[in-house]
C-alpha cells in the first residue's frame, strides 16, 4: 500500500509480429519473428493505456518491462513515446526458448528488483502464443492479489476496483495494492506517441538492459531446458476447397439461376 508520493506502475509488454503480417516458416513450422513488422502485443497496449490514464489523474511513475532480444527496444521506445517514464529490458541469451513458466519466474524476479511497485498491469494474453499464463504466474511468484481479464479499472481510496469479464457478464472486484491485473484486448484505445515522448526517447537514458546476472536470476531456472512445455507438432490448417458454381448468361437469367441454386442448397428460404 503506497504511502504518499507517486504510485509506481509496472506494465509488462511483449513485442509480437503484427497480426496482419503473421508468417509461419514452412520448414520449422514456427512463427517468423525476424524481419517481420512488429508491434506491442495489442492487449499489452491496452494495459499501458490504463496505466497512462491513472497517470493522467494522479502522480504516478510508469515502468515498462519486457523480456526478449534487443530488437524489443522498438516497442519499449514506443511505450515511452506514449508516456511511460522508463523501461527495463531483461535480455540474455540463456533466456532463449523459455516457455511461460521460466518467463513468469524471470519477470517476477525483475519486478522484485525494480521494487516499490504498487500495481502491475499485463495484457490478458499475447497474440503470438495466446496462453494467458504469464500475468497470473508473476502474481503467484510475488504472492500478490490478481484480477484477470479486466475491462475497466479505477483506484479508489488506495484500492483497485476492476471489472472482470466473466463467462456471461462481468464482476466488479476490489483489491488492495500491490496487485496485478491482466487487461482485456480492445477495452480501451491506446493513445498515439507524442512529440515530447519521442523527444525523450531521442535524448536517451530511458531504457536499461539487464542480464540474468544483473537481476540475480538462476540460470538453472530459465531457458529451453527448464521449460516443461513440449511442442510435439504444429500443423498449418488448410481450408477445404469451397464449392464453386459459375452461372453465365443474361443478367436476369443468371440471378434467377443463382436464387434457385441457393434455395436448393438450403442457404436461403424459398
Amino acid at each position: 500500500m503506497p504511502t504518499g508520493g507517486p504510485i509506481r506502475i509496472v506494465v509488462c509488454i511483449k513485442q509480437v509480429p503484427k497480426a496482419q503480417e503473421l508468417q509461419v516458416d514452412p520448414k520449422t513450422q514456427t512463427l517468423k519473428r525476424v524481419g517481420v513488422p512488429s508491434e506491442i502485443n495489442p492487449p499489452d497496449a491496452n494495459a499501458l493505456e490504463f496505466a497512462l490514464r491513472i497517470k493522467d489523474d494522479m502522480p504516478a511513475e510508469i515502468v515498462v518491462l519486457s523480456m526478449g532480444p534487443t530488437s524489443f527496444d522498438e516497442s519499449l521506445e514506443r511505450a515511452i513515446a506514449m508516456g511511460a517514464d522508463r523501461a527495463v529490458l531483461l535480455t540474455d541469451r540463456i533466456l532463449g526458448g523459455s516457455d511461460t513458466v521460466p518467463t513468469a519466474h524471470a519477470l517476477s524476479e525483475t519486478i522484485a528488483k525494480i521494487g516499490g511497485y504498487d500495481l502491475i498491469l499485463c495484457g490478458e494474453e499475447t497474440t503470438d502464443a495466446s496462453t494467458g499464463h504469464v500475468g497470473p504466474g508473476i502474481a503467484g511468484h510475488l504472492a500478490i492479489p490478481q484480477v484477470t481479464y479486466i475491462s475497466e479499472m479505477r483506484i479508489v481510496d488506495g484500492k483497485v476496483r476492476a471489472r472482470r469479464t466473466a463467462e456471461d457478464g462481468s464482476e466488479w472486484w476490489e483489491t488492495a495494492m500491490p496487485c496485478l491485473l491482466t487487461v482485456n484486448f480492445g477495452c480501451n484505445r491506446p493513445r498515439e506517441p507524442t512529440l515530447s515522448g519521442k523527444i525523450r526517447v531521442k535524448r536517451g537514458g530511458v531504457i536499461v538492459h539487464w542480464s540474468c546476472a544483473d537481476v540475480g536470476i538462476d540460470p538453472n531456472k530459465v531457458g529451453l531446458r527448464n521449460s516443461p512445455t513440449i511442442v510435439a507438432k504444429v500443423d498449418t490448417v488448410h481450408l477445404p476447397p469451397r464449392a464453386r458454381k459459375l452461372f453465365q448468361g443474361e443478367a436476369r437469367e443468371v440471378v434467377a439461376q443463382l436464387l434457385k441454386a441457393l434455395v436448393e442448397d438450403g442457404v436461403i428460404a424459398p
Partner: protein
Amino acid sequence: MAERFDAVVVGAGPAGSAAALALAKEKFSVLLVERGRTAGSKNMFGGRVYAWPLFDLLPEWQKDCPVERFVTRESLAFLSGDASLSVQFENPASTSGRAASFTALRPKFDEWLAKKAEAAGATLITGIKVDELLREGGKVRGVVAGPDKIAANVVVLAEGAMGPLAQKAGLLPELAPKAVSVGVKETVELPAATIQERFALGEKEGAAVVYAGDASMGLRGGGFLYTNKASVSLGLVVSSEDLARKKVEVQEVMERFRLHPSIQRLLKGGKVGEYSAHLVPELGLGMRAKYIADGVLLAGDAAGFLINNGYTFRGVDLAIASGIAAARAAVDARARGDFSAAGLASYDRHLRALNVLTDLERFRSTGGYLKNERLFSLYPKLLLGITEKVYTVDGSGKERISDVVLQEMKGKAPLFKMLKDFLDAARSM
C-alpha cells in the same frame, strides 16, 4: 512548457533538413519534425537534383549521397501523334563540380539528408504531425503537436506545397486551382544493364528528358523522364485548371503519354514499381504572399521556391538553398537578439546571395508564356509537321524548307500572333 529549442523546423524534406543541418552547425538546438514515418516517405518529385547548394551545405556530400545517376545527357522532345522530335545535349564531364546534377529517389535522398542534420546535432522526430503554430501576441513562439507545446525562437516552415500551417497562419493564401499543377509519376523498374543499353549510358551516367506537345494531350504542362540506377522515372506535370476545364483525368493523360511509341520503346518489359501524385506550386514567387513573419520563415515548396521554365524543373536545389538562407537569417537574428520579422529580414538578402530569389524573379514571366496554350498544342504539332515533310522523300516532289514552313503555318493562327508568342517565349527562357 515541456520542451524548448532554439529553432523548430517543420518538415524533413530537402528544405527542412538543409535548414536544420545549417542551424545545428551554427550551434542552434534544433528540433526537426516530420509527419511521415521516415523522412522522405511522403515526398515526391520528378527525380532530379541540381547539386550546387550541396557544396555549401555539405562539402563532402559526394562521399555517401544516394545518387542514382549523374545526368550527362539532356533532351528536349516534342511529341505529336506517333512521331517525336528531340534535341540532345551530351556532356559526359558533368558528373562533378557545381554544375553537376543527378537523379535520386526521395525516400533515400531525403532520409540521407535528414540523417546528416541529425548527425550535426539536430533532434529528428518522425511520425509526428505539427498541428499549429504556437502564438503569443501575434508572434510565432513555437509549435503545437497533439498535447505538446514546444517553444522556439524561430520556426522554419518547410512543410511542402500545401503549406497547411502557413495557410493557418495567414502567410499563404488558400491554394486556388490555377496556383497549382498536378504532378504524377511512375517508377518503372528495369535492370541497370538494360537502361544503360537503351539509353546508351555508362554505369554512372544518366539521361534527363523533358517532353512537350502531345505528352500532356495539349494541356498546359509537360512530361519528364529520368533514369535511375535500376528504374526509370516517368511523369507529367499538368495544369490542374486545364484538367478541370477540359474534364480530363490526370491518369488518362499519363496513360496516353506512357503509350507513345517513343516512350514505349524505352520502357518495354519494365514493371511499374511505384505510382505517385503530388501538387506542384506553379506560379512561383508571385503566388506566395509572405515568407518572413514574426518568429517564422517559409522555405522550399511552402514558400513557392520552384522554377519550371519549360526546359528545366527545379525544386530540390532551391529548397536546399532556401534552407541554408533561412539558417543564415536565424544566425543574424540571434546576433541581434531579435527574431521578429525585422530581425529575420536578412532572409531576403541571403536568398538573393544564393540566387534563389534572383532566379525566381528572372523566370517569373515564364509563368506567362507557359500559360499560353498554343505552346503545348499548336506549336509542337507545327514543328513535327514541318520536320516530317522535310524528311519525307517519297518521290512526290520535294519543297524547300521555307515553303514547307509557310505552308504548315498557314491557317493555324494569325502570323503576328505566332510571332508574338515566339518573342514572348524567347524573352522568358
